[in-house]
């Protein structure tokens, strides 16, 4: 039963990946839609970023002094000026660790 559920979930996931690439003719999308699609990364990824910072494992809001907020600010600053993905991730993680382990 669980196996069948996983296979169905997999098929649905595959369809979300494949439909727009293989089944939908791009000419069906108007010029305006194509212009709006340029915003997809900015319109999607904050929905992963914000809850990942501001909501904890139990689904409630974190406190304003939570180390994750500090870590995220450091990561944004380092990322903005360094343009380096590794530096962004590691600076965010390490500043977060500094607060939880040292302070």
């Amino acid at each position: 039963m669980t196996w069948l559920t996983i296979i169905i979930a997999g098929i649905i996931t595959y369809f979300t990946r494949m439909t727009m690439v293989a089944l939908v003719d791009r000419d069906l999308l108007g010029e305006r839609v194509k212009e709006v699609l340029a915003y997809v990364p900015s319109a999607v990824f904050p929905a992963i970023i914000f809850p990942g910072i501001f909501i904890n494992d139990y689904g409630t809001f974190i406190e304003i002094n939570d180390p994750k907020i500090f870590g995220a600010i450091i990561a944004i600053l380092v990322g903005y000026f360094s343009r380096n993905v590794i530096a962004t991730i590691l600076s965010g993680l390490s500043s977060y660790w500094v607060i939880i382990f040292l302070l």
Partner: protein
Amino acid sequence: MLTKTQLFSKGFLAVAPHMFSVIPFGIICGAIGIELGFDPVLVYAMSIIIFGGASQIVFLQLLSGGASALIAVTSVGVINSRHLLYGAVLSEYLEKLSFIKKLLISYIVVDQGFAESNKFFMKNKTEQHLHYHLIGSGVTLWIFWQLSTLAGIVLGSFVPEELGLKFAIPLTFIAIVVQDLKKLDHVIVMITCGLSSLLFFDAPFKSYIIISPIIALFVAALVLRLKK
């Protein structure tokens, strides 16, 4: 013109830095499955059949919490529906491929691969074999996802939870969008999406993950109209 091999390696190099978040997340994902008491073979099979971190974790948590199969499947579908948006963006660059190639390439499109390959595509629209960049990024993510979930299954939760490695996920996506903070229109769209995701966080089936992008895209359309 870049060769296919050059494009493939550029795709690999573009996502390689994201392994700092993909690998710990894969380990967590495998370990959670075992902790929740699922068959290791089943936990690993999900990495091949579903191949999507967040949806795999939610799926296992729902089933172990006694949710029905229908609820679990619906949640996975809703969480992964954002790929429809990625597909709509990528279709411009994959248009000329044969139907079979489109079917195959679709399987390996995940968040980080889409994000990095799309950045490359926007700057190199005239390249001939662009899709090799997407294959490079996608195959890299696929291989590391398989290895890291396997590691999590075999080693269990040897990564101490206090390290808070889940925090690497928002950080990896911050790295992806941070340069767009230079553009006011993108900042408006990002803040709209982020605030909506907090507002709708409790909506059923994790649907905040698709509701907030839709709201943000409407705002993007408004912004575009104002700019003209």
